């Protein structure tokens, strides 16, 4: 077994061409860097995967995101060899998947994989419990044992009482819970989830995401999750891989994707995301540079430097007052050297893990925000201008992208 954090799924330079002659001219053209549409126009072959390389670590929730037709499902299907690939290698836990055939392949799938489908793909003619225990049945597990395991998986997703129903008697959300339970019942190392929540209503989708993350916190499965919804990807993913036309555009943590979109294409996606909900305070805060309680006005202004303000802290390190650059300059202009009159107490504070959207209101006042830890100690200084800049930078990228595309 691999250790937590080791790479368990590795796709290396994977190409997948659909058509009668996958290894023919279409492949050569794709390898030479020609894009999907031109290859299709030239050869009639569809480039499903175009030099895809990524690796998923053990226990990681890895999300592949892209528009429909971008090759996400194809990528997922190479992992359990529902598709053969044209070139490259797919290694799962040290096994070269493409080399597996027949019963070896079946054993491999039974051992490693659970799969959850966009439209649930439950067996309509079997009861919920028989759906859930199907993977174990295929493994040849004896009836009693597999039904116990199925019941456990069902209660994990909160559907224990529906074991004897048929799938058609359940709502969409419940059916997908059954799908999830089916994936979990055989306790596989890897869960492949292809647009698992895309067919659900937004509200239920949210709920399912939360539930899945809860389960994941307990079970630490390796999950390869496919979605076309960036919000979902950023919300649940440990890392996100963005695909376009069969090729990987960017791989990174949600923050990296948001804060450093690799291309205009990614940035355009990012535009639709409410970043405030994803970017946390600590990503853009500055080190605190506090002003000691007994300092003079000149000393304090010195510490502010080019910033918009600084906090005065007490002996325990908690912020007590705020000196903004404007207030300090005004006081200095009036000839005072005393710090006291220039200070204000009506400042806002927040925690380092807070998301930006919770400090929008405070930022709107234009005053620096104190970032404190649990004990109240000042650990950072959040400048409202930086929040605006963060948004502005993204918009900038999009402008560039649009210029790139339309001009």
């Amino acid at each position, binding site marked *: 077994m691999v250790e937590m954090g080791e790479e368990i799924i590795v796709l290396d330079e994977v190409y997948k061409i659909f058509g009668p002659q996958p290894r023919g001219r279409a492949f050569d053209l794709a390898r030479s860097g020609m894009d999907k549409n031109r290859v299709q126009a030239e050869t009639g072959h569809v480039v499903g995967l175009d030099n895809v390389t990524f690796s998923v670590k053990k226990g990681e929730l890895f999300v592949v995101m892209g528009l429909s037709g971008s090759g996400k499902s194809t990528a997922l299907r190479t992992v359990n060899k*529902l598709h053969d690939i044209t070139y490259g290698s797919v290694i799962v836990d040290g096994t070269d998947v493409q080399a597996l055939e027949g019963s070896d392949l079946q*054993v491999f799938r039974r051992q490693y994989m659970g*799969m959850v489908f966009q439209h649930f793909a439950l*067996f309509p003619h079997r009861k919920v419990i028989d759906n859930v225990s*199907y993977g174990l049945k*295929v493994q040849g597990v004896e009836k009693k044992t597999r039904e116990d395991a199925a019941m456990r998986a069902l209660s994990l997703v909160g559907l224990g009482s529906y074991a004897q129903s048929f799938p058609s008697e359940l709502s969409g959300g419940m059916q997908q819970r059954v799908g999830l339970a*089916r994936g979990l019942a055989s306790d596989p190392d890897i869960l492949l989830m292809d647009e698992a929540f895309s067919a659900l209503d937004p509200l239920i989708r949210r709920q399912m995401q939360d539930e899945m993350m809860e389960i994941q916190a307990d079970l630490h499965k390796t999950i390869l999750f496919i979605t076309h919804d960036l919000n979902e990807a950023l919300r649940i993913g440990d890392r996100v891989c963005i695909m376009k036309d069969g090729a990987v555009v960017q791989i990174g943590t949600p923050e990296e994707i948001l804060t450093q979109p690799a291309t205009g294409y990614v940035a355009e996606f990012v535009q639709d995301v409410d970043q405030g909900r994803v970017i946390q305070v600590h990503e853009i805060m500055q080190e605190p540079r506090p002003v000691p309680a007994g300092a003079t006005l000149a000393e304090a202004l010195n510490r502010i430097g080019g910033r918009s303000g600084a906090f005065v802290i007490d002996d325990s390190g908690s912020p007590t007052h705020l000196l903004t650059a404007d207030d300090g300059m005004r006081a200095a202009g009036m000839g005072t050297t005393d710090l006291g009159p220039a200070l204000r107490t009506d400042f806002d504070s927040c925690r380092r893990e807070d998301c930006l959207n919770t400090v929008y209101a405070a930022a709107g006042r234009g005053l620096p925000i104190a970032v404190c830890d649990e004990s109240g100690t000042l650990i950072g200084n959040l400048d409202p201008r930086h929040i605006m800049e963060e948004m502005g930078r993204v918009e900038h990228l999009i402008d560039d992208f649009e210029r790139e595309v339309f001009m």
Partner: protein
Amino acid sequence: MTVLAQQAGGESATPGLFSEGLLDQFQIPVGNWADQAVDWIAVRLETLLQIIEWPFSTLIGFVVDDILEPVSWVWVVLAFLVIGTLIRGVKVGTFAAVSLGLCALLGVNFWLQTARTIGYIGVAVLLCVIVGLPLGIACGRVDSVWRVVRPVLDGMQVVHSFVYMLPFIFFWGTGVVSATMVTMVFALPPLVRLTNLGIRQVREDVVEASRAYGAPEWRVLFDVQLPLARPAITTGINQTLLLAISMLGIAAIMGAGGLGQLLLKAITDQSVSKGAASGLAFFLVAVVLDRISQPQSDGPGGLLRRIRRAWAHRRDPEKLLEGAEDTPSPEPAGSAGGFAPVTAEERPGMVIAGIGGLVAAVSVFLVWTTDAGFMSAYGRRTDENLAGETFNGLSASGGSWFGVLTLALGLWVVAAVVTTWLAPGRGPRLFTTDGALIGALALLVMMVCYALASPSDLSSPGTGPGVWLALAGGLVASVGALMWIRRAPHTPLHPLKLKIGWGRVIGGTVAAVIILVGMFSAWSFDKRSDQVMSDETLAKIEELRQKAVENPADAGPISAEISALTAQMSVTQLAVTDGVSSEGTRLGLWTLIGGLLGLATVLPAAGAMGRDEHRRWRWSTMTAGIGAGVACAALGWIAVHVRSADPNYLSGVGSFLALLGGVLLAATAAGILAEFRRSKVYADL
């Protein structure tokens, strides 16, 4: 050139391009080639031909000769009851058993051919399934197989069966084997196509789910693809069956025997009676097989329409699946509430009706016929030696089928009362209040007809107490059921139409007219030979007899002389009796009176006398009861004659018309009766 010119009889030596003479000079010997090829195959490949023939001849031999023909018809009928019940439910099972029973009662010859036909169709369909199902599965799973099979199927369906019939006859001769092969060629394609389609239209992701969990391919097939393709496959089997049925004619031409051959013979002999009977058996067999093999989701649909549909879509049976997507059956309306409990007001009527039914049922075990005359009872002249004996209602020579019907109707009434008493509203539709009244009235009407009718002027047996008891039972049951139905809380599922149902009145009138025509038609045919003895001959016979007594030594030659004399006097005559004349039973007259009474109840039932729904329902029930009674009276008469061992004494078409009229009369009430259920009460109201 010169030789040619001579042959052409001096005509132009070189015929022009457009002259037929040119074609005289050519003759591609296609016929010869084929002839040689067939000969070559028949001789060189004899073993191969025999191998191909083996499964056909073995199966047919086993199913038809070893099972269906020697086994008693009762077992076959019971087997169909069981099979139908297992596959499609009690209703279809019963229907199959009754229909096949009817085929058997047509006579032993018809039954044997019926069994043959069933066996032949069964074998053809079985072989189609054995070949077609795996082939269809292969086509559905492997594209390259489908690419090869598809044009072959197209070919099989484009060529007319008369054409490909020939090689089969050349190689295997005429008879049931080659007929089965030809039937297979014709009936196989839809099964392959539909199986292929069924497998292909299983959702890809569901199949993928099975694979993704590591299922081997056989599991993917048996766990997912086959179960989900089942509707398509059953439609395919049904199509195959319908096409096999439609091939029976050609099979008969090829010498397959069975009902098809009987029909053919009836056509060449121009025999109406044979044609009608074998046609009926043919029809019943077809309907039974179709019903049993019908996919659940399909509506019943007339057989002819279904065969026509099967024909129309035999090249694109895929179309048949459209619209047949599984529509979930709607919840029965208002299933939440419970049925109204039996009220105190209902009980007296129920008790009286129940007693009446019970009395009628018991009566058949009492004496129905006393002092059987020259003929014991209805139509049974063969029982000549029974003079003076007495019979109960069930013995064949007494009440016979009237007794059986009395027993059935009496028990029906009792069952309706008991079911409602114990579980109001929950029993079968027939075992409710209206069921009880229909049974009781039918009993009453039938027994009145029976009591009034006289078997014939030649026979006047005494009527035993059983008959009067049955009559009294019918009367009591009717009174009780009428009291009951006035109080029974029944309501229609939909509001009844406000307009007067003139259609029903017309229907009732037509029914009455049919019965009227029936009355003037023949109720019995007597084709038996009879002796018409003049007084002279009688005296002569008496004299001879006397002589024989006096000197017993001459008894031998004398009795021979007597036989010769009587034989001389034998005359074959056809005695036809209608339904009114006093030589007959006059059952026609009594059924007509019943029919007119029924017609009178149609008016209030159709809403001509007030809109009150409950009242219209009550009158409708009476119409149905009286109609059923008329039908039962006619049925009793027909059944007595069917049972008769003398093939020359038959019931006439008049009794059939009375039966038809009675059923039609009852049918006019069916619409309203189907609407009414025992009322429901809801706990939360």
